[in-house]
């Protein structure tokens, strides 16, 4: 594989991890517009642990994910009291605050950025993304995932069915944050550098954008969305500076004609049925 291809695959991996971090709470109807803040939490925690305390990578990166998850649990209680647009904006503000705090934290280099001494290669990043994907595929076959969709559809009925709506929402939010933290930890160790400016509003917002582009009805939507978002600008590379113009036009046109996203439940059902049909035909 060429360096270019590997580089692209690494970016795709980071985008896939971020996509699932956004997707999980979104499948319960909660829009997290501050995912970059949780990535920053994971990135800085992991970097600090491996730099200053000489933790091995295998401990530092999961610890970064855990720190991000913990932060989410702490803020979930007040933040998830808000709903809909208020929740989206609360997470938006939270993301900004987290990033700004790291921007001012001298112990991790503040605005100058933070060098990470341990390096991890593309293989780890790709394995991380594959791990997240496998985890999400497994999770999508559980009651938990079913309940999240049920809550998104109708929280009142879900509650009357005996489901702990708030508990499920907090869990989805916190697991999403842990995934974001994992992505952040991998990011810092792969690029050997963490700077708060990277974890911007744009990062959060673009992630949400390609998750919705892929579609939130099924677990494959975010994967397809991330792949699309990574690869389409590359395909448009020939158009140079204009590629994001075409990309944006595509997004607008796409959402106007197919607002439910690329991959929908019905689409998968049709696909499965057509695959099952020939088998059923055999005696």
């Amino acid at each position, binding site marked *: 594989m060429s360096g270019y291809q590997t580089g692209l695959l690494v970016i795709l991996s980071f985008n896939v991890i971020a996509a699932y971090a956004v997707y999980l709470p979104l499948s319960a109807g909660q829009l997290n517009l501050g995912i970059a803040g949780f990535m920053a939490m994971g990135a800085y925690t992991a970097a600090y642990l491996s730099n200053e305390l000489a933790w091995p990578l295998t401990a530092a990166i999961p610890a970064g994910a855990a720190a991000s998850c913990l932060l989410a649990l702490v803020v979930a209680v007040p933040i998830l009291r808000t709903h809909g647009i208020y929740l989206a904006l609360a997470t938006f503000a939270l993301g900004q605050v987290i990033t700004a705090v790291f921007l001012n934290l001298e112990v991790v280099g503040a605005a100058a950025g933070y060098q990470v001494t341990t390096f991890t290669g593309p293989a780890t990043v790709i394995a991380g993304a594959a791990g997240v994907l496998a985890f999400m595929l*497994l999770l999508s076959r559980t*009651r938990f995932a079913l309940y999240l969709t049920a809550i998104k*559809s109708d929280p009142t009925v*879900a509650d*009357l*069915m*005996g489901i702990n709506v708030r508990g499920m929402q907090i869990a989805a939010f916190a697991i999403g944050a842990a995934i974001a933290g994992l992505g952040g930890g991998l990011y810092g160790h792969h690029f050997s550098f963490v700077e708060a400016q990277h974890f911007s509003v744009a990062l959060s917002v673009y992630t949400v954008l390609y998750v919705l582009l892929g579609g939130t009805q099924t677990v494959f939507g975010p994967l397809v969305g991330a792949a699309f978002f990574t690869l389409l600008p590359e395909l448009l590379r020939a158009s140079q500076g204009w590629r994001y113009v075409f990309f944006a036009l595509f997004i607008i046109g796409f959402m106007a004609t197919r607002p439910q996203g690329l991959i929908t439940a019905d689409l998968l059902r049709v696909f499965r049925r057509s695959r099952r049909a020939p088998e059923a035909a055999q005696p």
Partner: protein
Amino acid sequence: MSAAPALTLDHLGKAFGGLRVLRDLSFTVRAQEPTALIGPNGAGKTTVFNLVSGVYAPSEGRILLGERDITHMPSRRRIAVGLSRSFQNIRLMSHLTVIENLIVGQHVRASGLLDLVKPFRLVPNHRWRREAIDALAECGLEAYADESVSALPYGIRKRIDLVRATLAGASLLMLDEPAAGLNPTETNAMRAHLELLKKRGVTLLIVEHDMHFVDQVCERVIVLNFGEKIAEGTLAEVQRDPQVRSAYLGDEAA
């Protein structure tokens, strides 16, 4: 019938702001005695359901399920003590398939942490799925198992809503207008379905406008008007009641 009380409303009242929609309402639904709650539009029937299921908190009075006071029990715990309901405007989860809706309906019987995180849908024909399919098959609906809910006809959705409400294994089932909007064939299927539930010992409490349907399904009738109980008894008895006749202006109940 001298069966034990399944549900008791004790001087129940509900006001929204200054508007009193229920006042001093007391009645008992006896176990395994299918009961109908009737009355003109706006009499407070659906409010009773919302209070009993915990969607609203009552302004005054108590609600007892069997012997147990559930007045202040959080709504989500009520299904675990044997209370289940359907909705007037069928509220199936539109993002889920039929079978997925039913699996959500099984929740109270599979609510451990392990049940929650087990990727059971990787196992072909897992017992939870099988059980849901069996429940569908009982009323001849198994063909719809993997359909998207939103695409199905009204009458089918209505019965799937009922199947879902039964899957929690509740002893008291509250149905809000089960026959409304159904054609004669669908109404017959619905009635057969309810007979099946009665045979299993489920106590039914039904809000319904179709008196023919009430007559066939229920043994007792409670009549509400303007948030108060105005009559109680068999359908024939309440139909003779002058208060009931005037509440209905002599048309429906006569």
